[in-house]
């Protein structure tokens, strides 16, 4: 051994640094190793038999929690087994190099949802696939701790929420349009506010489609020179026909049955188009933590500029329905990201929880039957109270996006 061995050398230090990186990484990923079930219920075990042309999974579903796929290669070639996400692309877990005659286990902590299983005999191609479902067992599937995962879950859930709301909007609009075109104005008036809540809950999303929003939700006051007025508020005016005095001095001319059909059909067609667009893959890809956070803030801005002033539903005065719907939409967006906010900025989460509760208390005080009192029944003091509460929530909500987008 030469005496120089004791001299600190740069490559040695670098080697140590490299090793430290490995160890740090190894330790950090180790945290996400599945916990052995603490409640005494063992993992569910499924058997998988892979041959040259078959991939037989013993059951098409398993409860969430620890799941073991015991994969046996009964073929003559090396095989692999994959559990893929619902899109069939992202690998949730895999086990490779299963030689003929061997059984290897794939162990994972599975969250509820839809998955795809695949055997890949010969290790080539897309593999032999089938659908697999993980049902919700109520087991608390420990979060992986990675914020990225929580954000992914939040966006997935939010996209599902938007899809659900547009579907309900479409069904509601169909009923509304049927009543309106058949001249059943009482039913149409009764359906108006309760159908529009589905629109108002996802308003920033709907507004992101710049062509649909003005066609569907433009107010008469916001009409520009030469622009044709169509959509919800045109029908609103026709259902709650104003006096000449309220109509700027001119007598309101009711729509003819032909016009009714024309505008109602267009509203339905636009709603169908909206529903189609939010169900495309492109739409889901465009949704991220930032757009959800900004959308929540956008909803509160809607409340502040339109609902709290009574301008949105100037003929029907059902602004409080919209108000509640906007708050609902913002709350859903926030709830999805709440875990992330809690981890990043616990004070902000507490602030938002308080303000959301406060605004809800104020709104609940104005409930009447299935809905709310009319905007015109509110006293100036009540309007001011609501406006203050909107501003109080708007401030912390404007910091939501920054808190979740690091």
């Amino acid at each position, binding site marked *: *051994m*030469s005496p*120089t*061995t004791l*001299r600190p*050398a*740069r*490559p*040695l230090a*670098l*080697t140590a*640094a*490299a*090793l430290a*990186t*490995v160890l740090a*990484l*190894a330790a950090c*990923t*180790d945290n*996400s*190793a*599945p916990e*052995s079930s603490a409640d005494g219920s063992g993992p569910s075990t499924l058997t998988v038999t892979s041959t040259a042309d078959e991939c037989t999974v013993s059951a098409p579903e398993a409860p969430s929690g620890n799941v073991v796929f015991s994969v046996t290669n009964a073929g*003559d*070639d*090396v095989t692999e087994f994959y559990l893929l996400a619902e899109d069939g*692309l*992202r*690998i*949730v*877990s*895999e086990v*490779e*190099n*299963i*030689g*003929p*005659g*061997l*059984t*290897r*286990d*794939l*162990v*994972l*902590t599975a969250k509820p949802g839809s998955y795809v299983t695949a055997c890949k005999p*010969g*290790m*080539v*191609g897309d593999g032999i696939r089938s659908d697999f479902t993980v049902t919700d067992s109520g087991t608390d599937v420990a979060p992986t701790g990675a914020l990225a995962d929580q954000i992914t879950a939040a966006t997935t859930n939010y996209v599902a929420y938007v899809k659900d709301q547009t579907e309900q909007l479409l069904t509601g609009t169909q009923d509304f349009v049927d009543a309106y075109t058949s001249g059943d104005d009482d039913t149409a008036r009764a359906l108006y506010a309760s159908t529009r809540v589905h629109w108002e809950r996802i308003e920033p999303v709907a507004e992101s489609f710049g062509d649909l929003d003005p066609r569907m939700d433009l107010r008469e006051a916001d009409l520009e020179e030469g622009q044709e007025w169509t959509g919800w508020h045109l029908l609103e005016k026709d259902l709650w026909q104003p006096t000449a005095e309220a109509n700027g001095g001119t007598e309101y001319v009711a729509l003819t049955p032909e016009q009714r059909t024309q505008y109602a059909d267009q509203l339905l067609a636009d709603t169908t188009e909206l529903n189609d667009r939010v169900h495309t893959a492109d739409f889901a890809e465009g949704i991220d933590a930032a757009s959800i956070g900004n959308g929540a803030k956008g909803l509160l801005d809607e409340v502040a500029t339109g609902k709290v002033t009574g301008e949105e539903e100037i003929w029907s005065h059902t602004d409080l329905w919209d108000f509640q719907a906007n708050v609902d939409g913002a709350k859903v967006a926030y709830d999805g990201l709440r875990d992330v906010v809690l981890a990043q900025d616990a004070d902000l989460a507490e602030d938002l929880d308080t303000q959301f509760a406060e605004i809800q208390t104020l709104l609940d005080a104005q409930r009447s039957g299935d809905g709310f009192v009319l905007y015109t029944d509110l006293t100036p003091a009540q309007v001011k109270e609501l406006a203050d509460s909107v501003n109080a929530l708007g401030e912390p909500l404007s910091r939501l996006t920054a808190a979740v987008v690091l």
Partner: protein
Amino acid sequence: MLPNFLIGLREGLEAALVVGILVAYLVKTGRRDLLPQLWAGVTLAVVGSLAFGALLTFGPRGLTFEAQEAIGGTLSIVAVGLITWMIFWMGKTARHLKTDLHGKLDEAVAAGRWAVLVMAVLAVGREGLETALFLWAGAQATGQTAEPLVGALLGILVAVALGWAVYKGAVRLDLRVFFAWTGLALIVIAAGVLSYGVHDLQEAGILPGLHHLAFDVSAQVPPSSWYGTLLKGTVNFSPATTWLEAIAWTAYIVPVLTVYIRTVWSGSPRTATASTPAQAPAAATDAPTTGGTP
């Protein structure tokens, strides 16, 4: 029997080649005293892999897939950093051998003493975990038939034999030719390891682009065929290569090969020594840093 044999061969080949070249290097430079370090590293990796594999197979806990891929991918990229450093270290040592034979050599080797151990650990350990998991699964199956286990062990033995053959061939080479060719071989292996590491990280979802293939020749070069196995085991060739893998491979091999050929492998060693004394050390110190931060 044959598919299991090929798995053993594939997993063992790359490690055997790297270890073979390391041994040949130490023998040729008269540093046999460092051989125990090397074998200690190999033993550590083998025992560690087997123990870890046994723990994951029989223990109460498994390692998540992401963790397994992230560790594998990161180790690969660290290994590339070390191998790259090794290549240029060898090149530098080769020049010292011609000029002041022993002075600076000791210094270089002293620093490399631990690198030798770490490199042996990485070269063997990288594929070790996967192989160990396979072997334990095979051991569990021996109640039914020992064939898979025997097949895989035979594969590993053939890989070791090939590594030994490379070693024997290498020690017979003249020193300059030895450095030139083994360095070249190591660069190609390292580029393969890098692209394999990138693939692991893509599978773990840490890097994007798993489904954007640059080319797919799986039909022509089936991964379970003997030639697919050899290509995978020696140069880590993947018949279905993603763009990111291809880019990483190219981005590594082009500059490294260029610098290497200019400093070490140029036709006249005298001009190389005179004109570019600073290049190899600079590259050498850079390499582990870049390799260590994936």
